[in-house]
């Protein structure tokens, strides 16, 4: 007899087979007549401007990460609130520990200034280049910021 995991395995196999059959049949049947206009990026009929591979500010990543933590916190809190009476004090303490851990993280993030959108320019350790000798430059193990030199 199949276990529950066995049924899941059959579903996985079926899913893979369906994808393979679909892609194979589509490849067999579809006309393939590409030309530059057809391959162009779809931008609602407008001419695509620039590359789609734009750089996104890394600050979004930090904010998204912080958001995700508290998003998950809410997702855990809701079912916990539903079964709160069954677990009573034990459940309360468990959730308290969980929340304390998260709030320590929150305080850490706040203190580090990761919640601020405007950030001070990071101070990169380096020295002003006063050395003329090439050998000395080669032997130097201090990081020299090229941007600082041009300023």
């Amino acid at each position: 007899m199949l276990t529950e995991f066995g049924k899941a395995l059959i579903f996985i196999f079926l899913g893979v087979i369906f994808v393979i059959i679909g892609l194979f049949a589509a490849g067999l049947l579809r006309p393939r007549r590409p030309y530059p206009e057809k391959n162009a990026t779809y931008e609602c009929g407008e001419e695509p401007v620039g590359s789609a591979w734009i750089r996104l500010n890394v600050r979004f990543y930090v904010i998204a990460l912080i958001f995700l933590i508290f998003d998950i916190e809410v997702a855990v809190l809701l079912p916990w609130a539903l079964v709160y009476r069954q677990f009573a004090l034990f459940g309360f303490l468990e959730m308290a520990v969980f929340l304390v851990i998260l709030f320590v993280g929150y305080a850490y993030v706040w203190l580090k200034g990761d919640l601020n959108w405007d950030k001070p320019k990071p101070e990169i350790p380096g020295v002003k280049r006063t050395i003329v000798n090439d050998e000395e430059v080669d032997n130097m193990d201090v990081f020299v910021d090229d941007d600082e030199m041009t300023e």
Partner: protein
Amino acid sequence: MGLLDQRFENGNVFITSLDGLLNWARLSSLWQMQFGLACCAIEMMAASASNFDIMRFGIIPRATPRQVDVMFVAGTVTIKMASRIKRLYDQMSEPRYIISMGSCATCGGPYWEHGYHVLKGVDRVIPVDVYIPGCPPRPEALLEGIMKLQEKVRKESLLKKRA
């Protein structure tokens, strides 16, 4: 890929019946470009709504031309819009069909004589399969246009070589 696309000679029984199956599948699922230009688009929306329900023809509105079989050019095609329509048509996946809905899209309609900004018929930029008269056409007229297009698809052959 595209191994079966226009690779066969005429008169092959197997190919003919496979063509019939493919055409039946295609005409029963003509996905529509979610795209309207002017007041004809209101009639198109009415045709999508429950009274006329073009989804029973297998017409599902899609938001990207890549997944689309048919585009209803529903409304006045201004000259500014013409290049966009051309680009959208180019980006549709083949085989693709155009239904010109209403007199504006067909020939410029009321803007035929003095419309300095209106393209005198969308067939000046893209090939049109079915023209629907009316200003605007009622949803029933759109349904008939769809059925005409289905007849056209039924008679086509994807597998046989083009003459």
